[in-house]
């Protein structure tokens, strides 16, 4: 039989191990995170959030080089960090053809939430392309700066369905579908789409489109009205100078002109600008140890987006 002192010692050790496990599972930082600094001794005045690539929720970059998608989750986290650090402005540098409707909308809403509080000014700078979902995000800014040749616009929603029946017939593949409701296999590429399904998909696309248009009207209130917006919100792409005429952007210029706008709006002289999307050391370590081979293949998230969303609702140029 074990003596009592041994049992107590054993229990104490088990408690210590459980405490360590609890610390980890609790996932709570042990200390409040320090404010993000750019220049030693000076906190950041402007949070730079670069949005490069296709916008998805779980954006991933390739360790083999080249980022393919931008993760809305990471962008939301960086906006929260900027808010926590009490920056004066957020500069969103967009170079994106769009992405998933939900991810673009999530970033837009987060930026609008911050903007409505009034403490932080938001400026969007457009690079090569800021179309569709990319424009959705930009619409949340107080001021949008585009290069004269930036590709923007493409305000619209798209659902594409392939019909592979002829191909399958050629190779001798037959599909048996058992479904609980008539729309359960909507957008199936294994049979022609029915008129009822087309109506449903139209309704679906129109609802998402309406949300997109309403978001732009809310973000650019007082700058563009519904009539003016509907004239260009038919999916067409525009170059920056045409977008200025169409009141989709506020001024023409490059990144440094956007910085000037930030200084003007937030009343800053010599602002410290820090990239808030760059992971801090803890996030880098977490990313390093959460490495998955799939990360090496940048197209994976896009493929998954299509696989997961049976109906790939996308805002893409």
């Amino acid at each position, binding site marked *: 039989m074990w003596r009592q002192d041994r049992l107590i*010692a054993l229990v104490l050790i088990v*408690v210590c191990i459980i405490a360590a496990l609890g610390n980890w599972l609790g996932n709570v930082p*042990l200390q409040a995170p320090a404010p993000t600094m750019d220049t030693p001794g000076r906190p950041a005045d402007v949070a730079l959030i670069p949005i490069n690539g296709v916008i998805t929720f779980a954006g991933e970059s390739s360790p083999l080089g080249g980022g393919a998608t931008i993760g809305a989750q990471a962008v939301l986290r960086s906006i929260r960090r900027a808010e926590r650090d009490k920056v004066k402005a957020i500069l969103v540098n967009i170079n994106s053809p769009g992405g998933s409707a939900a991810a673009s909308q999530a970033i837009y809403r987060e930026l609008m939430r911050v903007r409505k509080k009034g403490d932080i000014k938001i400026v969007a700078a457009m690079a090569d392309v800021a179309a569709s979902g990319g424009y959705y995000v930009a619409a949340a800014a107080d001021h949008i700066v585009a290069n004269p040749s930036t590709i923007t616009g493409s305000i619209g929603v798209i659902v594409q369905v392939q019909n592979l029946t002829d191909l399958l017939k050629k190779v001798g593949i037959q599909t048996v579908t058992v479904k609980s409701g008539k729309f359960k296999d909507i957008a199936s590429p294994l049979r022609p789409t029915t008129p009822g399904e087309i109506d449903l998909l139209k309704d679906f696309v129109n609802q998402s489109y309406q949300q997109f248009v309403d978001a732009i009207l809310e973000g650019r209130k007082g700058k563009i009205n519904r009539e003016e917006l509907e004239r260009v919100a038919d999916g067409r792409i525009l170059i920056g100078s045409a977008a200025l005429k169409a009141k989709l952007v506020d001024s023409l210029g490059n990144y440094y002109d956007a910085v000037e706008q930030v200084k003007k709006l937030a009343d800053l002289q010599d602002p410290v600008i820090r990239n808030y999307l760059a992971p801090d050391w803890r996030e880098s370590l977490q990313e390093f140890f959460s490495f998955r081979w799939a990360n090496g293949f940048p197209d994976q998230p896009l493929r998954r987006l299509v696989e997961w969303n049976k109906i790939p609702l996308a805002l893409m140029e």
Partner: protein
Amino acid sequence: MGLIEGLYNSWFRSELGRPSMPVAVASLALVCLVLSLNAAAMTESTVTGWLGWFFLFGLGLALGWFWLSAALHTVAQLLGGVGSVTDTFGAVAQSLWPLILTGAANGILRFSPLLGLVFSLAINLWVVVNLVRCVGREHQLPGLRAVLCFGGAIVLAELALLGLILWPLMVILGM
């Protein structure tokens, strides 16, 4: 049950002597488990992240075990110690067990930073005292010599580390 009995004797009845090799390895594995969980909590890692830490710390602990034991054994021999290499390895493994308590210390740190810090410092001090006592016991060194042995081993280990950095530099740049 034999392993648990061995761990109990190793941790709480160190006067009985160094633990057997399986007990020493089990003790270090538990230390590795707790330290990796602490690191995973600090970096908010996923399960794969924790596994990464566990294997990384396992490697670090194994190397550190060898490194520290080698330094302690060399200095102990110079000071007239009589223990074998196995005795030194056992003594080092036996001394590190208070690090298991760092899980609790980190838990306390969340509620009271000062108390957590004091607890953490006490754990580190405990490890040092354990090392001095265990090496002194295995090599039959009196108190002062055991302290000197520990201090000398740390200096020797740091010098060896410096050599490890400078030697390749010398070879690469000098050749």
